[in-house]
């Protein structure tokens, strides 16, 4: 009952500012909040009730309004909407420090977001209250990413006079304040009946994320992505408070990363001279990410998943070996030869230039995905090396060889980055919990889990004290569900993963009592069957479902989030993201009627 009352009050405020317009009278439909859902009804001529637009109705018909991801500590959206003038938004930065430029950039982004909340073909009237936003950053000197950075913020909105609305965002770092601006932008909605922008007037929000690592992996090696499409992805990530863009930049199919010291890698390995990422390109993306609170995390996958680019080095084995099914999981095969001393100089050069390009990263992903012992075993040189070390040629010896590689690579990585930064590896036979501690120190390595959420490895690794990032493929691999590109039928991890499953994929449930060791999770888009043409649709809006799971770890299921989810999809589309449609638009307009 009280919700219904709220709706009516809120509209009362809207129309208080002006007499009903012609548009309002001619609007055929209006929405009203009944039983926690917005119902579409005919706007009869004799109607005396205020005419609510869909978004205005939704803002008060749910405890979390149209917010995504939902705040975790306190959310009070009050009862009122005020008409505002988009041209009079003023942003004041009250504390000075070395992150000011970032805050200024975030403020600019905020203004862009507000203008994109007006749907295409409409224009908001330049009338209504003026808005002043005060940004209070209690630690204006912090601009570095870290796993324990403080992303919390508080947001207050109130109306001080009949023509003014004040919003205050307070945070312990730029990152938190920036999130607050995202939230504020979600509290401004467009009224398509009267062509006004409205803001929620009396707001208290206190918020912080549950998990510190909330990422998206993009593979730019199987198919190439333009810098522009990567930036667009980061834009969308920032809108749902994701904070890590994991750049799987190379693989056996191509090597688009341009290195000054080792120019041949991209010269021989890129798909074409224009399909490359220069150091400047990457720095540009890194800076773009920083302004949006998104770390750009480099991965250099090794010792497997290499091939193109390394042709002339003599440092690989089984490159393009046939039949490929014997030596790798997809063509072309290729693996580094760990016995070559020169290899580690090569790696160091790569790492050094990655450290220079990915200048703001606080972590480094070393890959370690899908190493084939058969591939190594096909090389006489490697066999001889192992025999000299008095290893035999069994499984455990190849693990020793891999470990030998990893130790050497690790030293070079530390040297290149100039610090002992956290390192990340994919789950593999090396990270098997029964012996992982023999190879990898839990204080040095973070394990990224890609096997299913039910894999006993998860509990095993947690019990041994390892920190995990969850990318269990059964819920977070967004390339699944399409036709196989080698062989017949559908691809290996089919079926397609619907957003509901993504939303329900809870690391807390998998971790049980070891929840503190879960750093977060990551969605992965492997690009065998994806390129800029499919990018937005594959990632969005499913990655938004993931974002709320990571930010809030809600105890509720997708059903409670469905209508906010449909709205965040609309928001993404207005931002220029070609997000897929989840349901007929009818379901968006008729809340609660598309049940299963």
């Amino acid at each position, binding site marked *: 009952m009280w919700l219904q009352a709220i709706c009516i009050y809120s509209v009362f405020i809207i129309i208080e500012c002006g007499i009903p317009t012609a548009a309002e009278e001619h609007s*055929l439909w209006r929405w009203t909040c009944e039983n926690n859902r917005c119902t579409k009804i005919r706007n009869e001529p004799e109607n005396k009730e205020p005419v609510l637009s869909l978004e205005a109705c939704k803002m008060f018909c749910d405890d979390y309004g149209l917010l995504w991801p939902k705040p975790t500590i306190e959310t009070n959206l009050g009862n009122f909407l005020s008409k505002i003038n988009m041209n009079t938004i003023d942003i004041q930065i009250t504390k000075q420090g070395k992150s000011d430029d970032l805050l200024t950039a975030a403020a600019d982004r905020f203004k862009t977001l507000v203008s994109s909340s007006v749907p295409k*073909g409409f224009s908001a009237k330049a009338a209504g209250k003026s808005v002043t936003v005060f940004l209070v950053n209690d630690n204006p000197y912090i601009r570095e990413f870290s796993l324990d950075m403080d992303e919390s913020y508080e947001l207050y909105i109130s109306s001080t006079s009949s023509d003014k609305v004040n919003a205050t965002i307070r945070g312990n770092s730029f990152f938190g304040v920036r999130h607050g601006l995202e939230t504020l932008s979600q509290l401004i909605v467009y009224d*398509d009946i009267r062509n006004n922008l409205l803001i929620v007037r009396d707001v208290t929000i206190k918020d912080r994320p549950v998990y510190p690592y909330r990422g998206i992996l993009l593979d730019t*090696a*199987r*198919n*190439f992505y333009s810098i522009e499409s990567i930036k667009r992805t980061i834009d969308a990530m920032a809108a749902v408070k994701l904070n890590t863009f994991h750049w799987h930049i190379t693989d056996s*199919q*191509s090597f688009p990363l341009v290195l000054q010291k080792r120019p041949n890698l991209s*010269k021989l390995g*890129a*798909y*074409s*001279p*224009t399909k490359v990422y220069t150091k400047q390109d990457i720095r540009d993306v890194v800076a773009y990410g920083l302004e949006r609170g998104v770390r750009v995390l480099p991965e250099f996958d090794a010792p497997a998943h290499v091939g193109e680019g390394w042709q002339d080095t003599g440092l690989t084995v089984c490159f*393009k070996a046939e039949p490929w099914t014997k030596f790798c999981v997809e*063509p*072309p095969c290729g693996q580094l030869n760990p016995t070559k001393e020169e290899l580690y100089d090569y790696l160091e050069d790569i790492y050094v230039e990655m450290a220079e390009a990915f200048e703001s990263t606080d972590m480094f992903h070393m890959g370690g995905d899908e190493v084939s012992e058969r591939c190594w075993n096909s090389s006489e040189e490697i066999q001889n090396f192992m025999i000299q070390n008095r290893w035999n040629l069994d499984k455990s010896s190849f693990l020793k060889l891999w470990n030998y590689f990893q130790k050497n690579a690790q030293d070079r990585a530390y040297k290149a980055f100039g610090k002992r930064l956290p390192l990340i590896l994919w789950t593999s036979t090396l990270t098997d919990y029964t012996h992982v501690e023999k190879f990898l120190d839990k204080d040095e390595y973070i394990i990224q889990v890609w096997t299913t959420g039910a894999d006993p490895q998860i509990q095993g690794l947690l019990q041994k004290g390892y920190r995990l990032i969850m990318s269990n493929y059964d819920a977070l691999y967004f390339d699944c*569900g*399409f*036709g*196989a*590109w*080698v062989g017949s039928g*559908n691809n290996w991890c089919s*079926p*397609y*993963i*619907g957003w*509901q*499953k993504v939303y*329900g994929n809870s690391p807390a449930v998998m971790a049980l009592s070891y929840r503190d060791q879960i750093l977060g999770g990551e969605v992965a888009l492997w*690009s*065998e*069957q*994806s*390129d*800029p*043409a*499919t990018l*937005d*649709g594959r990632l969005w809006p499913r990655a938004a479902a993931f974002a709320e799971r990571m930010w809030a770890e809600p105890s509720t299921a*997708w059903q409670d989030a469905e209508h906010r989810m449909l709205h965040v999809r609309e928001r993404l*589309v207005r931002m220029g993201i*070609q*997000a*897929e*449609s*989840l*349901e*007929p*638009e*009818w*379901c968006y*307009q*008729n809340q609660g*009627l*598309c*049940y*299963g």
Partner: protein
Amino acid sequence: MKMMSWGDALWLGLTARFARVGRLRRAVLMLAAAACTAAAVLYWKQQTDDSANRPLHSMYSGIEPQWSWLCQHDRCERYQASDTTTLQSLQTCNMLCASTQLWPQPTGPVSLASAAVPVRSDRFSLKVVASPSRDVTKHLNEAFIVMQNHMRTLEHGVVGENRRSDIGPPRDVLVKVSVNGSGDPRMRLDTNESYKLALRPSGNSLVVDITAHSFCGARHGLETLLQVTWLDPYAGSLLILEAATVVDAPRFPYRGLLLDTARNFFPVSELLRTIDAMAANKLNTFHWHVSDSQSFPWKLDSAPQLAQHGAYGPGAVYTSDDVRTIVKYARIRGIRVLMEIDTPAHVGRAFGWGPEAGLGHLAHCIEAEPWSSYCGEPPCGQLNPRNPHIYDLLEHVYREIIQLTGVDDIFHLGGDEVSEQCWAKHFNDTDPMDLWMEFTRQAMHVLERANGGKAPELTLLWSSRLTRSPYLERLDPKRFGVQVWGASQWPESRAVLDAGFRSVISHVDAWYLDCGFGSWRDSSDGHCGPYRSWQQVYEHRPWATETPESAAWPVEGGAACQWTEQLGPGGLDARVWPRTAALAERLWADRAEGATADVYLRLDTQRARLVARGVRAAPLWPRWCSHNPHACL
């Protein structure tokens, strides 16, 4: 190195190639002892001996190409550019190597030169040699401009200064078209879509002869001509095969794509791009499922109330002018626009204004709850078959469809998923199946009236309980055809065909493009998953089963269906393409082979053509596989 004259090359070319149907190998011109340099030499034959002996990459300015592809053992092999003396782009290698690279594969004899010459879009000219009507001539001129514009788009893809100055001057191309047959430019059920194309050098220019029996056939010829023209990124120029002959005709007369614009709205620009991509694949029917229970976006002149009450909003409406634009755009591309207003089910709020207009209930069960009792998906709604006003309204709708689309020989009445429960609730005196049969009869009656007193040659209904025994027997196979959407193994899917109904195949298990994206109402895998890969689309040949009856099935063709509960404008291209291209070849050529290596390579090329046309088609595989043809097969 001795250069061969045009005359020699042509002579060799024409005498050396005798292609057979089904095995379309190009004859390799043995122009030089070093076979690997033959192609490059051929298209630079205008250059002097001196420049031909220079390493080819020294002729480039700007970014130096990284790779060179050479045709060896009928495959394009990739080399580091610095390792070879011959520089050839992947596109050119593909075009000059073993595969025809044509899509869909022509059904008659084909012979293609393995040499290319430079051309420029503005050096193409059209000469209509014979035309049965002024209308056909006008359409030919417009279709020619469409082709030229596509060439121009390709030319705009030249990046920077990566342009050779010495590949020789572009040739003039004279396109001579003769149409001997129908003076009606529309795509009709009896349209003869066959064409012949002959491309040959003549002096310093090229002459193309396209002969056909209809405008649509001639247009297909232009599409094929466009496919033997490509942008060579290394040369920075369009190249064209220097000689080609193609004899071609489709296996099935109906080759369609259904797009549902009711579950989610798609702007006109999306529809136009889709139609253009269809033309690139010689599809001929844009089945526009314009309305459904969720929305009614088409604002008819004769019944504007439908969109007023049924559209998602003022920005989600198609006007009559929009429809005209779409129809005209499609007609120049040899495509009929088949508009479907699905009835009596799959209607909604658009029909809710009857009582206030004094017409009584035009529909029942509108948004009835619980929906699962009255329809297949929310919201429910079904026309009121006992209200005579509904037939007046349908007559208006049908008349406007026929007027706007100009399609009067084929019509789609809908007839999908009628809920017997809905009608049973309101009419307890009659069997709902009888109501349905009676509705269909009356709809057919007003359709005849709307069509000037004549029934269309083929009126389609969706397969349903009405098209199953014992109701099927009550339908006249001379008037009705069936679009069969049930799974190919369902007995009723076959029964329709066995009974002699002309049919359009849209089997859900092969040609429903919306499947495989999870459910939109719960977290299950969805009602028709998994995803249909392009290979599955391609390999579906239900008429080629082992049963003796199937040989006699009156199959008109097929259509891929893109229902849009889970699709908005942004995702359209990647969902539809290149899978619908796979369908296009199935219906055009119906090759007995499945997705063989050659199909992968040609489809990959066709995908690149679509991308160049501005269609955001999904990639088949990592680009590495395109660069290393055969390595991923």
